[in-house]
């Protein structure tokens, strides 16, 4: 097990470097630059800017410097757009915002999704099954940029119950609408996956064995069926957690949250090279770690999986 983890972690490093290099190339290929505006700059001023940020140096020097700073100092540099703010600081500051919304949405999605999915599977073809699956279908098909504004319209603009947007710290009432908006689709997927997984497991031999042993229905469901039935959910929620943690562009924009997703989209639109690379690298690392966690979780949940 330990050897497996170490081996996986070692593979992570070259993967990240490749991701960073591809990102770097893509940024260089993108037309435009971070300093352009409605009025074209006089050439002398443009040259000052290019000199200041070393943009006229040969590409291998620019690439080399970027990689060296990342490898040697774990330093992604300073944002080009936000003068004087280091990329590491920006990530450290915006991650908690994205993560608090993300984790809450994740927990909510897991609780509601698994509960609804299990009930649907246990009472297959009942009213419970149909209504929860219909809701799940709705959750999957209504995109969050529609759901968010509707929730705002109802709970903020009409009922004046909840603030329509902005960050209010953790915990605060401002979190409720973004968390609901964000978790809806995950909740729906988890419910469907749980239902499907459970239905399959409930028909398998070892459940029949468990029942034949005379175990109570509760024990059968919680100790045996749920463990097996959740396998598909686990493999889905690992990467899902990575995306939830690192912020979602749409929800952060609708609710004006100062999270990582908001920065990411702005950085790309601004051609803010160091910030883009920093955030891409961070997301990649998180994603790889989450996948590793999923593999470890498999080993615990499924007695057949051994590393």
């Amino acid at each position: 097990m330990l050897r497996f983890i170490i081996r996986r972690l070692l593979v992570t490093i070259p993967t990240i470097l490749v991701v960073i290099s591809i990102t770097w190339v893509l940024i260089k290929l993108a037309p435009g630059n971070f300093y352009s505006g409605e009025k074209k700059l006089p050439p002398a001023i443009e040259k000052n800017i290019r000199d200041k940020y070393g943009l006229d140096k040969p590409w291998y020097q620019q690439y080399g410097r970027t990689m060296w700073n990342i490898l040697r100092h774990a330093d992604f540099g300073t944002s080009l757009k936000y003068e004087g703010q280091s990329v590491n600081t920006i990530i450290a500051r915006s991650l908690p915002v994205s993560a608090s919304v993300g984790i809450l949405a994740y927990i909510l999605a897991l609780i509601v999704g698994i509960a609804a999915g299990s009930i649907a599977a246990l009472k297959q073809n009942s009213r419970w099954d149909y209504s929860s699956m219909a809701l799940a279908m709705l959750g999957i098909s209504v995109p969050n940029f529609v759901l968010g504004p509707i929730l705002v319209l109802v709970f903020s603009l009409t009922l004046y119950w909840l603030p329509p947007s902005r960050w209010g710290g953790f915990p605060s009432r401002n979190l409720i609408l973004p968390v609901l908006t964000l978790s809806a689709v995950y909740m729906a997927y988890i419910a469907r996956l749980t239902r499907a997984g459970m239905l399959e497991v409930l028909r398998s031999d070892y459940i029949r064995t468990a029942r034949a042993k005379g175990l109570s229905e509760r024990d059968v469901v919680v100790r045996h069926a749920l463990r097996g039935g959740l396998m598909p959910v686990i493999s889905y929620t690992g990467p899902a957690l990575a995306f939830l943690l690192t912020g979602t562009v749409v929800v952060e924009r609708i609710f004006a949250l100062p999270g990582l997703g908001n920065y990411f989209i702005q950085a790309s639109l601004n051609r803010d090279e160091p910030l883009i690379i920093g955030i891409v690298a961070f997301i990649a690392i998180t994603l790889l770690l989450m996948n590793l966690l999923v593999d470890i979780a498999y080993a615990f949940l499924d007695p057949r999986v051994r590393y």
Partner: protein
Amino acid sequence: MRVRNWKRLGALLSVATLAIANLSCGISAKNEVFFGKTIPPERNILRYVTGDEPETLDPPMSTGQPEARIYMAIYEGLVEYHPKNLRPIPALAERWDINNDSSEFTFHLRHNGRWSNGDPIDANDFVYSFRRALSPELASRNAYLGAYIKYAEAYTARAVFVRDPATGQFLLARDFQDDPVPEPLSSKPLAASSEYRATAEEPNADPDSAFHQLMHTPTRLTLPGDQKARTKLLDKNPKLKAAATGKEFVTVKAEDIGVEALDKYVLRISLVQPAPFFSGLLAHQVFRLVPRKVIEQYGDRWTEPEHIVTCGPFKVKTWRPYDKLVVERDPMYWDAATVKLDEIHFYPMSDNPAIMNLYKVGEVDAVLNHTVPNAWLDVVRNKKDYMDAVEAAIDYLQINVTKPPMNDVRVRKAFNFAIDKNAWAQWRRIVKPLTAFTPEGIFQGYPQPKGDQFDPDRARQLLAEAGFPVVKRADGSYSCPSFPVSEVEYIYNTQESNKAMAEWMQAQWKQNLGITVSLRNMEWRTFLNARAKLEYKGFSRGAWSADYMDPFTFLSLFYTGGESGTGWLDPKYLAMVDEANRMLDPQQRYALLAKAEKYMLDAQPVIPIDTSAVNWVKKPYVKEMYPNPGGLFPWKYVYIERDQSKWDFGTPSLAE
């Protein structure tokens, strides 16, 4: 049957969603006087949405309006914008003298100016701030605004003087000009023509220092500092090459630019040319005061809340980027008694519906310009908190004049004649139709020229003259089969309002000329790149808002070429503008500028469309905040009015 039912339900759902989204501003606001809640905040705090996330709190480093508004709270310059008309009013300078050809400005600073840490402010702080803002190392994008200051442009461009090592004499610019321009700097004594009176006794500073004499010697020749560029230039000009051979090149230094502290409280600025509008320019962020000690101690990190030292009516309390910047009243500020608000909370937001929602529920008290979405206008425009006023900004189309068929002025004119701008303004509801290149009704006393009005017959005639006859079909529509439609397109940056404008123009040309111009939307930076490099054919969307309150801020777009993104650069136009700016009489200058504008309009490198509207909302209890044409507010006058009888009902008047 079942399937059909489901389908119908789906359709119903989507219609319902759309209806809800459209009504979102209407539901509870239908019969109310104001848009949303009007409960003043408990404390004297103004909560304001200023637009995009501020790039930095270092004033010369940002070009945007969102930042400009923040800088007006925490930094001050020699002058400040008037809350109604944006003309310069005294700030850290309590008065100023202008010499008789408007090429030299002497500012008398107030003696009680203080930094937020209590240190006194004097003229040397300004000398430092100006030199820093214009330095090539800082690489400020705004540095071009300082080019009126003598040798500033050369300093920013790292240019060199040419000195004879034997005599120590510098080569002079006038000896190498074919048509030497008269030296603008008047060495005549300064005419004391101040509007404002001194508050303290001032010792008489030496009015004619050695530096001052230097500023009044004929302008020195400057050459590019970069060796390659210099060699190229010298190779082209044999006379210059001969004169420069054997000479030494001396880099233009910060100390060479025309900014001088005469004594502790007198600052003199010498310009390269007469610029009657220069004092108005000095309220711009690039000329605001920055703290030398803190910058030298912390470098790049000086703007962090724990280090920053400011000089405006407010100082930074907390800053959480992408969330909130809180500034609080600064007791050290020289005019702290006037400051009425305890705090201002600046919210960085750029999603218009989200901003309007926040405004409606009463979580913010005022929002930035251009915030009311088009679809909401019908409701919001009739509310008493809607700000209805013109803006010093225009929308226009740029034409790439370097590629056929648009290199033919007749074709360009035809496309202009074919657009009914009055109909456009009616459809857009809040803008004013525009035929000239300067915004209408902004610059008082400026005899704005009239461009061509809508005239589709004339448009078709011009196209025919250019070799593209327009034929009328049996059904009354037009077609222009010989026009190379593949050579013309309309590019714009992706945004709902730009798309609407593009489609509207497309329809006009289709209807009146029978030409279908294809539309192409681009991501913002890609668009800027294509436009600046003239990598487009036909038309591109353009918009410009004033940097300062003078028509020249618009006319200068065609002054240095390339900047305009059209490829149109006419020496005659440059000469006309130069001549105008040399005029001492403001009215004469305006007349000549208007002549130049007319000349440019006749060449039609652009198609003017409209003068923008400010289009924002503020709660009625927010007072002394005016919808001025620049969207900039001197915050120290703004206050929260709790007495409902004194609230603003409707747009507050801009008349003084």
